[in-house]
């Protein structure tokens, strides 16, 4: 663990990108291969299956430190991070032991799932005797499957590229999909020999930046291809020799969840890779997003679900054709091939239509139809653009429709996590229903740090009641919340669930009585459901 702990500290202590890349480089140059593979596994955000629940860990750590559960909770609320809280509360290690990272995972984490509750507890208590400080903290993070160091994958790839001489884009490709975190994988990853794409491996996704400048600044409309921005699940569909795979952007393999797509892909020629969107669809338009949500979590789909929320794959790019990686070709050529490949494909595979627009105002007029069409806005892609890696500025833009907004009153507040630990940044906001406020959204604040601190001070001085970590405050502050959609929800007191609500700005100019009313939201929802 020592090298890995050192790496973690350097990443955590340095705010500058170059220092972080240097820390990664230093680590990958010296770390044993089997440890480096596991470090990489965690750095790119993959997680071990959870070996122990946070509730168990909390209870055992409380017992080990001789503290009542409520006091452990108080500490957690103050520190904002469970793994850190428990690492600080458990007494210091009695017999410290320097575990290599891979050995720690093999001996102290992976076997836990096979053990009984009591054996698991004993093994973890043993680890507490062996690990101190940051090593213990990282151990907890790996145990609960929530390891995040807040560095982007691109930085990890850059560092590995410097260590190995393999181009970063090639490393990104090799790191896609499922790979075993072991020494031989790590060696193959950094090897400069050419390799074909393994059978099930997807390509790195190319991502668009939000368009914040005027659309006319993009120049000649003729250089751009426009499509709807679909509101589904971004995915890659692969038809390779004797295998079919559907990967989401989160690199989750979801083939079996969408049997209708899996069947349709079988009809494609071998050596085809499509980029597109999984969408719940009926007749010629998407179903409301709620229908898609019912399918997302299902491992086995019932015939009812297949009937009520049928899914299609809306393809918008072709990455592999006849088994050849064609990502470097211009979009216009890939697009022509995509249309040819899917010409006689089953109806579950559709080509995302391009939008004809003579000039930018015409496109703006189309964008205004987005909500009625249940799309999120418009995608703009340069016709000459290759299919790149990760998020880049310039060639692909998403021009989203403006979010819905509502003015709501702050009702409850709770302390945040991470760098917002101890600061009240999680707000519950309500709108008026007659004379009373009814909560409609729990939103993490999108305010500036300065505003957050000001609101935090206000909250502390205007608390009426405390229920554990939740403070009930005087209903006085008005915030504008932005959200992407709304749907009926019997689980919410208001009867409405907002999609992606966030605090947009603080309306200091408004009195609580000026906030919106529930009737207005109901009317919006009814309009959106039709």
């Amino acid at each position, binding site marked *: 663990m020592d090298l890995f702990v050192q790496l973690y500290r350097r990443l*955590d*202590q*340095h*705010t500058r990108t170059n220092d972080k890349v240097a820390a990664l480089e230093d680590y990958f140059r010296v770390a044993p291969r089997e440890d480096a593979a596991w470090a990489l596994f965690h750095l790119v955000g993959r997680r071990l299956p959870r070996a122990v629940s946070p509730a168990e860990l909390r209870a055992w750590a409380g017992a080990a*430190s001789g*503290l*009542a559960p*409520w*006091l452990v909770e*108080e*500490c957690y609320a*103050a*520190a*904002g*991070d469970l793994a*850190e*809280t428990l690492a*600080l*509360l458990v007494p210091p290690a009695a017999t410290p032991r320097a575990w290599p990272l891979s050995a720690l995972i093999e001996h102290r984490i992976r076997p836990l799932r096979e053990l009984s509750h009591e054996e698991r507890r004993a093994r973890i208590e043993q680890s507490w005797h062996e690990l101190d400080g940051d090593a213990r903290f990282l151990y907890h993070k790996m145990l609960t499957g929530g390891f995040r160091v807040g560095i982007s994958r691109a930085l990890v790839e850059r560092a590995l590229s410097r260590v190995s001489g393999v181009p970063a884009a090639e490393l990104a490709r090799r790191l896609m999909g499922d790979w075993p975190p072991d020494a031989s994988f790590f060696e193959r990853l950094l090897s400069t020999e050419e390799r074909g794409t393994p059978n099930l491996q997807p390509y790195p996704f190319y991502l668009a930046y939000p368009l914040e400048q005027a659309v006319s600044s993009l120049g000649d409309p003729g250089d751009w291809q426009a499509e709807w921005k679909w509101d589904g699940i971004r995915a890659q569909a692969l038809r390779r020799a004797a295998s079919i795979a559907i990967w989401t952007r989160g690199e989750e393999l979801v083939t079996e969840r969408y049997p209708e797509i899996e069947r349709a892909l079988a009809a494609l020629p071998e050596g085809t890779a499509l980029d597109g969107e999984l969408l719940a669809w009926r007749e010629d338009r998407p179903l409301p997003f709620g229908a898609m949500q019912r399918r997302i979590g299902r491992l086995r789909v019932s015939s009812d679900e297949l009937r009520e929320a049928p899914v299609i794959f809306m393809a918008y790019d072709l990455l592999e054709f006849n088994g050849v990686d064609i990502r470097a070709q211009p979009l216009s050529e890939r697009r022509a091939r995509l249309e040819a490949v899917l010409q006689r494909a089953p109806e579950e595979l559709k080509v995302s239509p391009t939008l004809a627009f003579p000039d930018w105002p015409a496109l703006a007029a189309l964008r205004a139809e987005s909500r009625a069409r249940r799309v999120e806005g418009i995608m703009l892609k340069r016709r000459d653009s290759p299919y790149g890696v990760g998020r880049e500025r310039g060639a692909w833009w998403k021009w989203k429709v403006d979010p819905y907004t509502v003015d709501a009153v702050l009702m409850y507040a709770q302390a945040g*996590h*991470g*760098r*917002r*630990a*101890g*600061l009240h940044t999680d707000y519950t906001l309500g709108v008026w229903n007659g004379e009373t406020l009814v909560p409609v959204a729990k939103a993490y604040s999108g305010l500036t*740090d300065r505003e957050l601190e000001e609101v*935090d*001070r206000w909250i*502390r*001085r205007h*608390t009426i009641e405390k229920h554990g970590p939740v403070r009930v405050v005087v209903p006085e502050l008005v915030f504008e919340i932005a959200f992407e959609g709304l749907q009926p929800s019997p689980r919410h007191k208001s009867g409405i669930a907002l999609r992606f609500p966030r605090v947009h700005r603080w309306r200091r100019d408004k009195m609580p009585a000026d906030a919106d009313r529930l009737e207005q939201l109901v009317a919006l929802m009814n309009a959106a459901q039709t």
Partner: protein
Amino acid sequence: MSRIVQATSAGLYCEAGGFYIDPWRPVAHALITHAHSDHARPGHGAYLTAEPGLPLVRERVGAPVEGLPYGERRRIGAAVVSFHPAAHMRGAAQARIEVGGRVAVVTGDFKRDDDPTADAFEPVPCHELIMESTFALPLYRWPDASEIVREIHDWWRENQEAGRTSVLLAYAVGKAQRLLALLNPEQGPILYHGAMERFVELYRAADVSLPAARKATADDAKTLRGRALLLAPPSAHHSPWLRKWGACSVGFASGWMRVRGARRRRGADRGFVISDHADWPALLQTIEESGAEWVGLTHGYGEALARYLRELGREADVVRTAFIGEAGAESDAPPARESAD
């Protein structure tokens, strides 16, 4: 039975002696435990403080202040008062108040760790203990201060090798002088922000041994950048003043740095866990040694400690005050004009 010291809207009040301790509204007679601005406020009629803190409190309140040597007893009305070292900063005192054979102690802010600029904490037996509880959660346990001082020097050296100025953020009164006393001037130039100058002078005038260090000037920013260690108050972080120093690494010295989230929120590169307040074990030890029948808690996580003590069968309550504690987290108290510590 009423307690010797009561919480009133003007501050902690001893009726038998007719005086207040660290009051926040103007009163006739004030006992001052130490020179932080939330404890020592201007506008009172008469001031009494521990002798070694006299020049510091006088600087703060801008009025005549009377000093009483540590341990010396003074009768005030029906009460007998004495001051005992609290080790929070130079001159910081616990106030011992005896009335008719019963004793109350108001600790003010205190710590149990060594501090070359302050007299060591003295445990004082009492019946009623009014104690600060800024860091009253078991999360807060201070590492050995000598270990942290070594970390600071290692960080400074690393920065020197990389050509970065080391900026150590710390409170201008008390913490800054303590750090100064612990720094080794042989490693490089030590400079401090103008906000610290007056109290550094007062410490030196009181014969506290501080190493060669001086106020940073605009010229220093050009000639000593990349080598110097610069002590600055937290408000200097992200200021135009700091930008003159080129590439910097910013460290923050505070008990709050025990928790990563607090450091990240402050945007500091490094956190050094060094505090002038008592940590959880020191708070418990102090209660134990006092033998108090009742504990009243001020600052910070008092509610948690009060509940913990009650579950152990002790009498304990939160006493509402306007004290702030070690800034960096806000207390539930009403706002003071200026944050202290």
